[in-house]
């Protein structure tokens, strides 16, 4: 017998497929649990993703006088009301460009992906687990911010729920695609940090974190409309007050997701 003979333990047929299916389910569950533990053990990452949005809202609310009182300047609305959707946009940007980008870059730099690629598990599944954990963190962080706005400032909103969900999902997708693209060409986690913040702060600006709502100059807004987080922020603000998102913003979000996603898929390397 020589090497050309198939080993007897290679299972074919239904039994082998079933066993492999079970292994795949079990390993995916373990990967998600492991990534969740690693996420929680990274104090900076979990703070920024989960606590920061609510904390920022509360800090701004207690520092800025009149934050939760109707203001004549902005049509009798409370500043906190139009700040909340901006905070949601910021939460999306933070999870994508800080938490997710860092974990992706660190794993590749340390050879974690390379180690994983010696096992039957595809690194794609690690990526999926990391996405799942980061999306969960984003949902918790956003929920905490909404809860804070409601409990502390008594915000009453009549959002356009389907529109708001669409804006949130598309905004997240475009920013995750951007993070994957950045991770594709940042060789080290230090470089990822650097490039991440180079992109992060302008994105926050475009989202209106420093010039919320009507305070954003018209010229800036016209540029911001074409950035993923700017478009997401505008769409979130529109839907928050019950309107439908503007087609331009949805188109920008879909376009960014497709473009960044395709480039990332082309450029991403596992080691």
């Amino acid at each position: 017998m020589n090497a050309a003979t198939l080993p007897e333990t290679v299972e074919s047929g239904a039994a082998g497929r079933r066993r492999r299916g079970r292994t795949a389910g079990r390993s995916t569950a373990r990967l998600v649990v492991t990534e969740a533990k690693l996420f929680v053990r990274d104090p900076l990452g979990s703070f920024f993703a989960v606590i920061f949005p609510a904390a920022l809202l509360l800090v701004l609310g207690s520092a800025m006088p009149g934050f939760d009182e109707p203001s004549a300047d902005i049509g009798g609305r409370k500043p906190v009301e139009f700040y909340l959707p901006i905070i949601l946009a910021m939460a999306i940007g933070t999870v994508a460009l800080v938490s997710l980008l860092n974990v992706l870059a660190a794993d590749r730099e340390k050879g974690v992906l390379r180690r994983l690629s010696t096992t039957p598990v595809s690194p794609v599944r690690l990526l999926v687990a990391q996405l799942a954990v980061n999306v969960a963190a984003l949902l918790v962080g956003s929920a905490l911010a909404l809860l804070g706005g409601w409990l502390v400032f008594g915000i009453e909103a009549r959002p356009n729920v389907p529109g708001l969900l669409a804006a949130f999902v598309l905004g997240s997708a475009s920013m995750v695609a951007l993070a994957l693209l950045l991770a594709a060409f940042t060789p080290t986690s230090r470089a990822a940090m650097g490039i991440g913040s180079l992109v992060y702060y302008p994105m926050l600006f475009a989202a209106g974190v420093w010039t919320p709502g009507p305070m954003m100059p018209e010229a800036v807004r016209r540029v911001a409309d074409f950035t993923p987080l700017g478009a997401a922020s505008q769409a979130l603000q529109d839907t928050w007050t019950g309107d439908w998102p503007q087609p331009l913003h949805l188109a920008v979000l879909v376009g960014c997701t497709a473009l960044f996603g395709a480039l990332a898929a082309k450029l991403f390397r596992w080691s």
Partner: protein
Amino acid sequence: MTVIEVSNLQKRYGDQVAVRDVSFEVRAGEIFGIVGPNGSGKTTTVECLTGLRRADGGMIRVLGLDPARDRAELRRQVGIQLQESHLPDRLKVWEALDLYSSFYPEPADWRALMAELGLTAKRNTVFAKLSGGQKQRLSVALALVGNPRIAVLDELTTGLDPQARRDTWQLVREVRDRGVTVVLVTHFMDEAERLCDRLAVVRAGEVVAIDTPAELVARADVPGVARPTLEDAVLALTGPTASTPN
């Protein structure tokens, strides 16, 4: 029975030729060693063998599988310890073993493996806080946790203290006695001599000799040394003054 067959393997990195022409066969149940100077292409060879890199030329069969084509099936059956590999800093020892064992259809008992490698006391220590030797032991454990039919171990005992080295040798022998074929890359001649059934000596990307350690010593022609050791024999084959293979 041959479980690994490599013929005329070639691999370049850009202009740099890492493997010029490597051929060997590994039989079922043996411990096969690969020795040679730094940069002679040992790691590249085992990486091609396990499908981590795609060879530029030559033929490889591992358990009848082509590593470039049947990656998934190969990885269920081959456990690999990379020369350089890391885990996430905050992952604990037991979590790593538990996680990696979930990747395989019929894993080994990771708790027993953890005990055999002397890691039980460190089960709750995170990867970043392990010593170099403890990381290495974990790496060996992860290579074995899938109950592989072939274990490929690249610089298995580098960084281990003398006792840990001997314990690891014992573990490798036990693994072999369970029927696992072992491919071992090493720079330690005592390790090669005591552990390996046969050795391939490589120099500058070519195999210059394949034989049992005893035969390599017996055949050694080292001027001025009456009773050469395996190290003398290997150095004579790979040193700058060695004649080119033919």
